[in-house]
């Protein structure tokens, strides 16, 4: 996973609540066996006409938002399915940070695993950042994970909180499977005890 330390980039406004995972990447694009290449399908139903032509009024079809690296949205971003294709599509498009008042749990989890930073900020602040994001070429926002601040185009710094363990993994681009593997002796011990107490959990192979 690519480390996330600090990011300065164009922020795109998406003033909607409940941006669900079917909006982020419709089901018909989940038939891939790769993590990459999904950026072209990001927000496909909102972004393209049936014949594949771009819908000009969709934000990511407009300059400078074609190069957006940050997305500002409202409540319950990423609700719906567990598809990790949602953060994969965002990442492949170039978006590495989503700022919203809150996120659906699984999307929130999946984002961290892929170096996409979900930043939770209160609605009023998201509304201010939404105004910033509407500034076109002047919509550059900085997200500094090290210092845990979002820097608005006017220089104002907004602190945010984040789980320290997740911050650590993200800052260092760490693979958490490797981390967990260090606990293998404890896992062995757990299995030995569980097998003695509930042997049926160990003999139900198909």
């Amino acid at each position: 996973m690519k480390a996330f330390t600090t990011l300065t980039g164009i922020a795109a406004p998406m003033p909607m609540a409940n941006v669900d995972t079917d909006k982020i990447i419709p089901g018909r694009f989940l038939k891939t066996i790769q993590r990459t290449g999904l950026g072209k399908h990001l927000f496909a139903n909102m972004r393209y006409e049936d014949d594949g032509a771009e819908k000009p009024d969709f934000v990511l079809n407009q300059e400078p938002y074609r190069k957006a690296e940050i997305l500002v949205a409202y409540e319950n971003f990423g609700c719906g399915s567990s598809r990790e294709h949602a953060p994969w599509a965002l990442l492949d498009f170039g978006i590495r940070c989503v700022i919203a008042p809150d996120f659906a749990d699984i999307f929130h989890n999946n984002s961290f695993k892929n170096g996409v930073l979900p930043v939770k900020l209160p609605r009023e602040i998201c509304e201010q950042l939404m105004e910033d994001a509407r500034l076109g070429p002047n919509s550059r926002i900085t997200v500094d994970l090290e210092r845990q601040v979002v820097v608005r185009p006017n220089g104002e710094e907004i602190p945010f909180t984040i789980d320290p363990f997740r911050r650590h993994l993200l800052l260092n681009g760490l693979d958490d499977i490797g981390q967990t593997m260090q606990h293998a002796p404890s896992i062995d011990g757990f299995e030995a005890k569980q097998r003695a107490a509930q042997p049926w959990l160990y003999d139900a192979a198909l």
Partner: protein
Amino acid sequence: MSATKPRTLSDSSPRTLFDKIWDAHVVETLPDGTAVLYIDKHLTHEVTSPQAFEGLRLAGRKVRRPDATLAVVDHNIATDASRYGTIEDPESRTQVETLEANVKAFGVPYIPLTDKRQGIVHVIGPELGLSLPGMTIVCGDSHTSTHGALGALAFGIGTSEVEHVLATQTLLQKPAKNMRVTVDGKLPAGCTAKDIVLAIIGKIGTAGGTGHVIEFAGEAIRALDMAGRMTVCNMSIEAGARAGMVAPDQTTFDYVKGRPFAPKGEAYDRAVAWWKTLPSDEGAVFDKEVRLDAAEIIPQMTWGTSPEDVLPVTGVVPNPAEIADEARRAQVQRMVEYMGLTPGQKLTDLKVDVVFVGSCTNSRIEDIRVVADIAKGRKVAPHVRALVVPGSGLVKEAAEAEGLDKVLLEAGFEWREAGCSMCLGMNPDKLKPGQRSASTSNRNFEGRQGPGGRTHLVSPAMAAAAAIAGHFVDVRDFAKQEGV
């Protein structure tokens, strides 16, 4: 899961069902409170696993416990006879072939399409006795919450976590908060488990359960059979919750007994003795409590493009102009337009083009019986295409043994092979742009059942009645209205 204060095993304060299962699966607690949580059962399918197996391969890792893992194809397969030939769509074919290659390479048990036990992963887990009370169960699929009906902690994970479980049989998690939704009283005739859960989502919203595990309790939940409890737990995710669960009781134990992979004989007795200790203790504290009166529930249907946009079937389409909050007004306006509705229109005046009975929410034998009951001696309206898609090959077999297939076919329903079908628009069963469906599935998002499709979520009874009437109808009046 979201942060809350870490608990210790020596803590003797009253615990919830969630707390007990959680505590029994903590391998180790890291200094910041993150737990290495042991996973008892890992179910996997073709859509969310390829990149996880690829990750293992690249890192030179093995599957730690193939015996605790099961793979099945369900999402992108066809549900007609064509599925037994070559899969037409090259990407779907690649995904299925990739799963087949992966299960072989990693030694994971697999139920292929040709096996009559094949079906939707959340139908076959409980059906085969693979999902049991007290277990931790995961799958790369948000509707894993379904298995919580057994009194298990079951939740959906992303592909990175699928890889994590394959490699380590654990997940790094923080405990969720506890929420209890109590449904008191008795459900009126014509209402089902689906109406209960839609009413709950209507009340608490699609983010109402975020960060929480919901325990469903109360007389109306206790009275549900296992299929009904699965329907309720299935849609916990639509209420934003990480998982939903129902405390195991005699209904649960009777359901589990004798299933192919459930413990047998003395092991079953030992298991039941443990399962009986799982229900929440008297005085256990929930971070959030919600109560509903079942007697007040009216058959529900969604009108918008989020499951929280639900109304009693007796309702009318909301008028955006009457909504004070600007953001909500814009949202309702967008939904009314997308769904092709007129403010103030009666919901029962909406004509349906397609009726879909199926999905991990409502494709069990109990659901199909309800539909057949309504279909018996009647005909699907001429302009309606109606599909009944059993959740598994075993459900299909059971339905055919009862003659339900004949009843449905005679009434003009299509009778299909098992799979996810029209729930999610990634296999050949899709809505065409502008088509309106009455669907027993779980999501009415824009384009969920196919680009431009308009989905109304309802119970199997309401779906069947809509198929016959050709428009939405209050199933409670249905018997009277028919033939008028």
